Every structure is written in structure tokens, then in C-alpha cells.
């Protein structure tokens, strides 16, 4: 039996697949276009709200004024951003070393974990705003005090997620290591740390945001004496002067820093896990 002549050869890609491909393309573009469009719309509405209602700029400045403040005050804002950024990154670094280090220590000795874990929790659940004033009474250096504040809020997610990771090793692999007579060090280095990596990176992403919060809180409590003014201090100061436009400008910079930290840590996580971890894999279909 021969096929009727009027049937066309099958296309390289069928209609359903073509629709799916179009949808994927569309979603890819929408991922960037939509948030930008929403932002443009919000800024436009904000501007109209201010103009139509004739709201005075010391109550709500127009977007144009905020932009002007951002460009005119750029030198002091940039200086503030550098200071806040430095404290944030240092705190994140200390949080990673302290959190992961404690997690490894807890993992090596159950007794140490039982002794100290409750205090790590207490430190975490006590609001840092409440601890900060005390810290600045006892800690001479403003920088060290600010670091300490930021560390207190940032280390816990690293500690708890790394602890979970170190304990989540495949039990058969654990048995295998025992059968081959692996040392405690080998088990930690070859098996537990790689197993814990995805968990650690999850905690790190949270810690990045928290260390910025810690740095901002510390600045608000500490004031400027001796270390120069960070972004949080600039927000406070501009508030006292009713320079609301600069408050918005500084706030925008703080938000941008938070986004930047999150994006950088997400990228790091992707780079480290993309070869093997489920979270970084693309599924077909």
C-alpha cells in the first residue's frame, strides 16, 4: 500500500512542540521585561500622584527629585555605600567562617553540639536591635562592634543549614566509608563536606541578606563616631533634615546592594552545583 500523494512529509517540528518552544521563548523574555515594565509603571504613577496632588517634596519627592539627589549627592552616597558594603561583606565572611566552622565542630563532637547549640539559638532569636546598644557599650571599636552585630544575625543560617547538610549523608555511603576503614578526617573531607555543600550554599544566600540587615541596624545604633557615615546613617541624617529625596536615594542604594549580594551568591551557587546537583539541572519536557 502506498501513501496518498497529497499527504505532506511530516514537518521537522510538530505543532505542539512549536507551541511549547514559543511559550518557553515568551517566558524567557517576560522574566526580564515584565519586572522592568512594572517598575516603569510604578514610577510613572508615583510621579503623577505627586504632580496631580501637588504633594510638597518634603512629604513625598517626585521620582525626578530622587534621581537628582542620587546624582548630585553621589559622592557622599557612594562613600556611604562603600562603608556599609565593606561591613556587610566582612560580616558575611566571618559568618561563613564562624557558621561553617561551628557546624563542623558540632558535627565532630555531639557533646560540644549539645553544650552550645541552645546558645546559638538564643543568640539568633534575640533581636539584634536589642543587643546592639549593649555591644557598643563594651566594644571600643565601632568597626568591630558593627561586624559583631552583623555576624550575630548572619551566622545562624549558615550554621543550621551546614549542620543539616553534614548530617544528611547517604547512609549507604557512610557504611561504605566504614567498610574501607576511612578516618574521621577522610569522611569529613571526601564525603560530608561535598554532601553539605548545597545546604551550605542555601544558608549562605540567606546570610547574605541578613548581614546587610545587621550592618544597617548596627549603623543606626552606632552613629558615626570615628568610622565615617554609612548608608543607614545617611538615611537617618537626611530624615532629620527633611531631605526626603536623599532618604529615597540612599534607600534605593541599600536595596540595590541587597539585590547585588543575592545575585552574586546565586551565581556562585549555580557555578558550584551545576555539574551534579538536582537543583541546578534542567529537565527535558
Amino acid at each position, binding site marked *: 500500500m502506498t501513501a496518498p500523494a497529497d499527504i505532506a512529509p511530516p514537518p521537522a517540528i510538530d505543532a505542539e512542540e512549536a507551541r511549547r518552544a514559543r511559550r518557553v521563548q515568551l517566558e524567557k523574555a517576560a522574566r526580564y521585561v515584565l519586572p522592568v515594565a512594572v517598575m516603569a509603571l510604578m514610577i510613572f504613577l508615583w510621579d503623577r500622584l505627586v504632580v496631580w496632588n501637588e504633594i510638597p517634596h518634603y512629604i513625598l519627592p517626585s521620582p525626578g527629585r530622587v534621581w537628582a539627589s542620587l546624582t548630585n549627592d553621589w559622592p557622599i552616597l557612594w562613600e556611604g555605600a562603600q562603608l556599609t558594603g565593606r561591613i556587610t561583606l566582612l560580616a558575611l565572611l566571618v559568618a561563613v567562617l564562624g557558621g561553617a566552622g561551628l557546624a563542623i565542630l558540632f558535627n565532630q563532637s555531639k557533646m560540644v553540639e549539645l553544650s552550645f547549640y541552645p546558645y546559638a539559638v538564643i543568640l539568633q532569636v534575640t533581636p539584634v536591635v536589642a543587643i546592639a546598644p549593649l555591644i557598643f557599650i563594651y566594644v571600643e571599636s565601632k568597626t568591630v562592634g558593627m561586624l559583631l552585630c552583623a555576624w550575630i544575625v548572619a551566622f545562624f543560617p549558615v550554621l543550621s543549614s551546614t549542620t543539616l547538610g553534614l548530617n544528611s549523608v*547517604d547512609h*549507604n*555511603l557512610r*557504611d*561504605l*566509608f*566504614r*567498610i*574501607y*576503614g*576511612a578516618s574521621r578526617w*577522610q569522611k569529613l573531607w*571526601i*564525603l560530608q563536606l*561535598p554532601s553539605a*555543600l548545597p545546604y551550605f550554599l542555601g544558608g549562605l544566600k540567606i546570610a547574605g541578606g541578613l548581614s546587610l540587615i545587621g550592618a544597617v541596624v548596627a549603623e543606626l545604633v552606632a552613629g558615626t563616631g570615628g568610622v565615617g557615615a554609612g548608608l543607614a546613617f545617611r538615611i537617618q541624617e537626611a530624615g532629620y533634615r527633611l531631605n526626603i529625596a536623599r532618604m529615597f536615594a540612599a534607600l534605593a542604594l541599600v536595596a540595590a546592594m541587597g539585590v547585588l549580594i543575592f545575585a552574586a551568591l546565586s551565581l556562585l551557587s549555580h557555578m558550584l552545583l551545576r*555539574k*551534579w*546537583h*538536582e537543583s541546578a*539541572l534542567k529537565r527535558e519536557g
Partner: protein
Amino acid sequence: MRKIAPIDDRPELLRLEGVDKVFSGNVQALSNLSLHVNGGDFISLLGPSGCGKSTALRLIAGLSEPTTGRITWAGPRGDGDLGVVFQEPTLMPWATVVQNVHLPFRLEGKSYNSVKDDILDVLKLVGLDKFQNAYPRELSGGMKMRVSIARAMVTQPKLILMDEPFAALDEITRFKLNNDLLAMQARVGCTVIFVTHSVFESVFLSDRIVVMAARPGRVIEEVRVEEPYPRTEDFRTSAEYAAHCRAASRALEHAMEAA
């Protein structure tokens, strides 16, 4: 090819004598288990769930200690003398195929370069020499299991323990791996203790089938499959194979009735 001595002439490798295992809550997992394992044996432990097959493997592996009774090795035993294959491939997902197979050596402190030839040989043996640098997620279930077997064999152990390694695979892959496992064992010349639920698998692979009953786990009978190796697909369809399957099935029925 492996020189096969008659079962009773093989040198003793390992002996279990009157082994009991009682778990907390007074659960008797094994009762009075005695088994002589000879060098070159391919032993299947066959029985229903809860008959203590896996517990017996854990005891032999040294992951757990008998409550009473003794397990004695005939000669001195080093870390590389025992290989294990679990029901899952149990590979390190962050490591490539060669890195996974290197693991037993790495834990002995041997660098990759010093054992490279052994690793490549065993990968060739399991047919994965073209996938050296693949990550486990890039492999099929059967291929992952081959990596797991390669890892167990790479140190040329005296004894390999296999805990239902092919239970999760489809039948086509399982048959292929059964054939290949026999070929590999012949090349390496190791002793195998193989836990399985399948009468057919145990008859095809082993020359000794130890049939066990549950609650408490104990040995009911040993069925011998004294058919020559190498065994091929032809053996699967032979009258002898069918006869051995009948014998093993009958023993398994006794085990179920005894439970």
C-alpha cells in the same frame, strides 16, 4: 578463565558459627546461622523479606556485631579485601565515574596516578571505559550499577557482598548484568555473596543457594547448582536450569511454610 574446583575442595575463606543477632526490642533477626564460605564460591542468600539476609551481610561486612556466635576469616584481612554493592548504586553525585571508582584506593591513601591502570582496567571490564569523566546523573540506572560494581572490584577483593543489586532494574538490564557479573567474577576470581528475592537470578548466578526463613531469620536448606561456568543465555533455557529452579522454589516454599 577461573579454575573451578568442586565446591567441597575449595579453601575456606570465612566461617560463620552459631551467629545470633538480636535487635533492641527483642527482635531476633538471625538465629543460629552457620555458614562456611569458600574461596571462589558464588553464594546466593535467598528468602522472603525479613529473613535476615541483609543483616547477615552487614555482620559479614563488619558493620554490625553478632549478639552471640563468631565470624572468622581464614586469613589476615585488609581494608581492600572486601567490596560491597548496595541495592542503590550509592555513588557520590559530585564525583565523576573515575573518581567514584578511585574511592577505595583513595581511602587507603593511594593517589589516582598510582592506581590509574587498575581503575581503567576495571572500567573496561564493566564496559564503561568511554564514560570515565561522566557524572552519575548522566548515566542510566544500569550504568550506575556497573560503576558501583567496578568500585567494589577495583581493589581485587577476596569477597564481594551484593545486597539485591539488580532488584530496581528492568528485566532486560538485569539479565545483561547477570551475564556480565559472571564474566567479571570469572576474570577477578573473587568470592561473591549475593542477596536476592529471585529464584531465577539465584539459580543462574550461583553454585550455592542458601535458602532462609523469616522470624527468626535462619537457614532452611542449601541448594547446590553444580553446573559449569561460564554460563550463558543457553543455560537460562536449559532443562537443567529449570530443574534447579524447581528445587530452589521448593526449598523456598518450605522456608515460607516454616515461617
